[in-house]
């Protein structure tokens, strides 16, 4: 999912830009804009969890409709 830098407007893929030079132990999960260096933290795990739950319920819904169609 591409993100747009809030400072310089550059659009980039976050996977490629996680901070690799970080001094914090274990990395800081920060995404740095490749153009201007503006850093935003990666998605909160709460939000990720929420997304996963949504996806799961959607998948269940999808399965339901499959069953209905087959039957």
């Amino acid at each position: 999912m591409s993100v747009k830098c809030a400072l310089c407007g550059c659009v980039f893929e976050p996977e490629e830009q996680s901070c690799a030079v970080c001094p914090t132990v274990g990395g800081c999960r920060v995404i740095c804009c490749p153009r201007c260096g503006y850093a935003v933290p990666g998605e909160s795990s709460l939000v990720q969890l929420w997304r996963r739950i949504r996806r799961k319920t959607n998948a269940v819904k999808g399965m339901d409709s499959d069953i209905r169609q087959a039957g």
Partner: protein
Amino acid sequence: MEGVSRPRCHTMKGRAGGKTGRKILLVGNPNVGKSVIFHHLTGKYAQVSNYPGTTVMVTSGNASFGDGSVVIDSPGANSLSPRSEDERVTRDLLLKEDQAVVIQVADTKNLSRALLLTAQLSDAGTPMVLALNMTDEAELKGINIDIQKLSHVLRVPVVATTATRGLGIQELQNTLEEARPAKLRVRFSSDIEHALLQIEELIPELPLGRRAVALMLLCGDTELENWLQQRAGPQAVQAIYSIAADLQSRNARPIDYLINRVRSREVQRVMGHVAYRGVARSNYLADTFGRWSTHPLAGIPILAFILLLLYYVVGVVGAGIVVDLVESVLFGEYIIPAVGWLFALLPIPLLQDLMVGEYGLVSVGLTYAVAIILPVVGFFFICFSLLEDIGYLPRLAVMANVVLRRIGLSGKAVLPLILGLGCDTMATLTTRTLESKKERLIATLLLALAVPCSAQMAVILALLGGISGTAVALFFAIILIQLLLVGFLASRILPGDRPDFVLEIPPIRVPQLSNVVTKTLARMEWYFKEAVPLFLAGTFILFVLDKLGALVFVESAFTPVVEGWLGLPAATAAAFIMGFLRRDFGAAGLFMLAEQGLLDANQILVSLVVITLFIPCIANLFVIIKERGLRVGIAIVGFVFPYAIVVGGLLNLLFRALKVGL
């Protein structure tokens, strides 16, 4: 007979139900965001290939929602009666991928152009959903589309998306199950309709609606000839051409023109039902605000106003909550006594001390992190995410540039200073993008010296909020003066100027709650993961120093400076040491001292100035040494440390001489 005569129920099942191998075809006018949506739907890995016999690139990839679907990104097309190679490839894809579900991507700002294509997809009878993309820009232009009505008219799911920000993609994905052929069937004049019927009889069972193919043929699509030869035989092709020629001979204007005219009339009729212009709420206000916020003169009061708001939200509201938490409710009355009681069961006094003593992990480390930092930083991050979402940050950079250029700093060196508001350590890393060595040095120095990071700023606001607005203004004035002064002096050494950094200034827009919430959550989580362990480690170090008696030694060693010169109680030395571990940790220590009534207003200001100008925190120093070398690191500490003490002391003297009491 209305054209679509293929065995629909059969194919529909294959399409919507069984997922493996399902094809999802992205279709739409050029530059509407198809490719961006494609990337959302597929994730990282995509195959790019030349469409056979053309130079046109077609991208395809596996759907990231993992149901075995394949997503294909078609080149842009304004019509299915091709006039360009791109359009031909799109049409061919529709013919070839006849089991595909189509996502038509539309530019909401230019819906009528998209609906012309929808009309043709409707003739083709392909199951589809419509994505109204670029809703962000449409909103700014005050263009509103009644999505429900449009969905009702077209009888297909319609989803609003802002692909660049990933909005609506999930919903789009969900509605794929409900894809069906659009109903935007246009009735042409009777002679055209008659010709269409005749042609339809001549063409065989087709994956695409016969009517669509008949229309393409009437519009003079010669590319279809080969394809038709194979399926219907040369006689049928001949017959079709003579029908088309006959029709043309009875009309003065070209047939494709006539067909398009009727289509566009129908589209305009639909538009009349679904589109309306909002009052140019289109953010006349936001636009004006946007323009003024970068104006060299008007921008400064706007910045001041924003800082004022920040002060109220963080310094007054946030700090109020902190004081409550610290003084009574959570920690004072419940947690610390509870932990104390728990460890009282253990017969080891040292362990008790470690948890709830003067430098206890719970009584200091956790308390600072949860009771002081959490509320204050939370409020600060809400404000910051809001400013980020409305698009203020680039404007702040522009403003800072205007000011800092006056003192001779180049435009590019300004950016790290702005970034430093987030985290000095991170910003120091970005100084490596600056061109000259001296520029890098100045930016690094200023960052270490005078730019408070966001968490520190939040605690500072909370502390000063307890005093008065004047104190806040005074503090920022002092820091700003240091920044300008040192920047100015340092830049004297730096000749010549550099090209400005070009920023894309986005329009100011109304903030979106969901954005602000997710950004704030991300920031808080990140902050906590980073700060809490360091807070605990810092407390532990202080605890050890204390037990070894080293802390008393350090405090007494610095007493002449701290008490005599800065006019602060000796206990602040511990806060300064904490500040070296993390600046915000130090600020939190000062907050506690103030809460205990050990610091008066003047002393708070002096100590905050010192701790802000003070040597950078360990992480920052580490990066400075790594990026600029050990010598520079030592030099910066060697300069900043005495400098902070001198400025703090002068401030103290000034307060005494003028008998100021804040």
